[in-house]
């Protein structure tokens, strides 16, 4: 073979450093994943299915009660005991011209037949705010109709009592009324701080990605061990380089997939907004409705859907740039942190089934992290939550909830400290997992025992 075609010394003179080998492993892992059809299936079909499921959940997952008996508490007689009855089949209204206490409504025998009561106080014409207390949460359709009926009646009152313009003119310049829907058993809305749940949702997505792609690390290592390719690789690449290359390569594929999800969901949301909820900012909606123009049928609903809370939440309340930026940051850091554990575990296992058993430990930790996020919503200011935000296992989700709740300017240091601790923990994790990896990667066929993790 010693032909004169080439000179081996030239080859060696192009020898690369450690980083180059790590990068070669990164690219191999990345290519391995992105050439699979399942990767693109999950990346492209996943978000579309998710959006469809969310829509169906909101469409079909609500109360199917067809007729609502509602008591309107109007002590100042603002509405003059009158309301439009365009939906006579769906609603039955009674008026009480007095203040009504929640306890009285719940316990009073005469109120038992009502499904909820609408509180319209004397300030409603100025602050445009009313509350509907329900026993069973009304569907989006019922919420929308009730909102519509109340608004129409109040517009009439407002125009006749406080202005000299016509109703039509008023509807062109009006501000929409804010009708809040509250659970009668949780009137202060303490348990359903929507913003916190949005943060929790983003944190849960982060943990979901960490788990899915952490498992990919574990599987990849156990496969390399079982097909023995690892020994060939280790003759050229140091174990830590191999481990790091694997974690980064799989992580990059996770980021690509996440990016595609965000892109598709953003496009989908834009289409939804433009096609179905385009009058979110259209103050003349009511007028349009009355004249019957511009009404579109969408899945059996009309454009009245624009008023529902979910749509408002998605399109107006969530600060996507901030939440997505921090979710991406915590995804990268959290993935690197947890990834070291998955890699260490993969290297220590003797068989693929071994790995499955010990994954339960990591799942338990991830479950605890989810629970920590929930605790952050319920006990936002407790000392426990204060410390949970610094623990690297829980900080990705706890910090996401706290970000959505809003850090006070004096508390920003907490967020920075959490991120710093997470970064330091990644390096400690890499050192620890690197040792486990080096020690375990060439052991095949044994049965992994818990004490093996602590042996030197």
């Amino acid at each position, binding site marked *: 073979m010693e032909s004169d075609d080439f000179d081996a010394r030239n080859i060696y003179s192009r020898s690369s450093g450690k980083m180059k080998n790590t990068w070669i492993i990164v690219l191999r892992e990345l290519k391995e994943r992105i050439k699979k059809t399942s990767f693109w299936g999950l990346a492209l079909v996943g978000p579309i299915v998710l959006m469809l499921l969310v829509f169906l959940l909101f469409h079909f997952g609500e109360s199917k009660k067809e007729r609502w008996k509602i008591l309107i508490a109007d002590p100042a007689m603002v509405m003059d005991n009158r309301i439009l009855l365009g939906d006579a089949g769906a609603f039955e209204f009674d008026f009480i011209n007095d203040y009504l206490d929640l306890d009285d409504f719940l316990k009073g025998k005469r109120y038992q037949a009502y499904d909820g009561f609408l509180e319209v106080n004397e300030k409603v014409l100025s602050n445009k705010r009313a509350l509907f207390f329900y026993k069973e949460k009304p569907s989006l359709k019922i919420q929308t109709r009730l909102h519509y009926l109340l608004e129409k009646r109040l517009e009439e009152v407002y125009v006749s009592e406080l202005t000299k313009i016509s109703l039509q003119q008023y509807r062109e310049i009006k501000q929409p009324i804010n009708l809040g829907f509250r659970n009668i058993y949780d009137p202060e809305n303490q348990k359903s701080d929507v913003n916190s749940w949005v943060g929790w949702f983003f944190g849960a997505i982060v943990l979901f990605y960490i788990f899915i792609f952490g498992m990919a690390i574990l599987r990849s290592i156990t496969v390399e061990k079982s097909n023995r390719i690892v020994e060939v690789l280790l003759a*050229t690449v140091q174990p830590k380089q191999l481990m790091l290359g694997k974690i980064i390569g799989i992580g990059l594929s996770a980021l690509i997939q996440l990016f595609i999800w965000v892109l598709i969901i953003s496009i989908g949301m834009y289409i939804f907004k433009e096609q179905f909820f385009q009058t979110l900012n259209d103050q003349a909606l009511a007028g349009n409705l009355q004249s019957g123009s511009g009404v579109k049928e969408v899945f059996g609903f009309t454009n009245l859907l624009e008023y529902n809370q979910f749509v408002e939440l998605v399109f107006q309340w969530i600060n996507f740039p901030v939440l997505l930026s921090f979710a991406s940051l915590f995804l990268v850091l959290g993935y690197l942190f947890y990834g070291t554990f998955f890699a260490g575990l993969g290297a220590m296992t003797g068989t693929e089934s071994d790995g499955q058993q010990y994954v339960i430990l990591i799942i338990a930790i991830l479950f605890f992290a989810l629970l920590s996020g929930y605790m952050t919503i319920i006990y936002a200011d407790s000392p426990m939550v204060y410390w949970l935000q610094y623990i690297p296992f829980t900080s990705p989700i706890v910090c996401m909830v706290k970000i959505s709740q809003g850090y006070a300017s004096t508390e920003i240091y907490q967020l920075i400290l959490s991120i710093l601790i997470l970064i330091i923990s990644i390096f400690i994790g890499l050192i620890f997992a690197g040792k486990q990896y080096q020690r375990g990667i060439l052991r095949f066929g044994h049965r992994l025992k818990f004490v093996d993790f602590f042996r030197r």
Partner: protein
Amino acid sequence: MISLEGVSKSFQQKLAVDDVSFSLEKGKILGLLGPNGAGKTTLIRMMNRILFPDKGNIFFDGQLLNQKHLQHIGYLPEERGLYKTMTVWEHVKLIGQLRGMSKVDIAQNYNYWAEKFGIETWKNKRIEELSKGMAQKIQFICTVIHQPEVLILDEPFSGFDPVNIELVQNEIKTMRTNGKTILLSSHNMKSVEELCDNVVLINQSKKVLEGNINTIRSERGDNIYAVRFQGNMIAFVNALWAGFELVGKEEVTGNTFIAYVKMRNESSFNDLLNTLMNEVKLEGAWKVMTSMQEIFIQEVAEK
């Protein structure tokens, strides 16, 4: 080229290699022999820096072995594997790049070996489509793709049919002729006898035998010579006196035989020839070398 000095390694209090020293001479093939579990793979892994000695040192060209030297070593492990979802070319390219080669050089070397092994059409085949023997060829190519100065081959013939064993053996011989240094670990004693210049035998973590293979084979055993002759077997036996003992015979044709004679007392080969010369027509005589198989069994099983 590579030398080990007092190398020891243990795993959780179990001694895998105990104070082993030997050298691979440039341009020679060293056979590393030993029963299963003797410590051969541990030694080989230390020579590839996959494991590190607890005691002792390993040198490459007089320097302490370091990561940089690995680019000059080609390693074919006993437990070998390939990425099943990759194509042949992708796999060879990956290993070549990890060894610091450019794509052009990898392609050039790959084409050379593909032609040698007659596998020019496999380039875009996925590894999972290959038979075991075909995969073995790819693994061998991956080992030599970067033209290493030193080759460490652990059971290189396993999985090959006799035709391909011959092919690989010839390639190994050619590489030796071209000045490559080769360490061959194998349980195939016939291949060891055919290929190796020197051997090291490891048993129970220790080195028990080392030296030139021909010297070892001729020194071992019972000093037996084979004599090929034409004539009468009875006359041959009668000619032998107290200094010799007939220990075996083979009939080649009707009056041609090969007799195996053991030397006794101070008798020499010359004495034997003088004794027989007038009794039978001698066609040839040679020292019967002890097989590596016998030496292996003597050293391992009988101790």
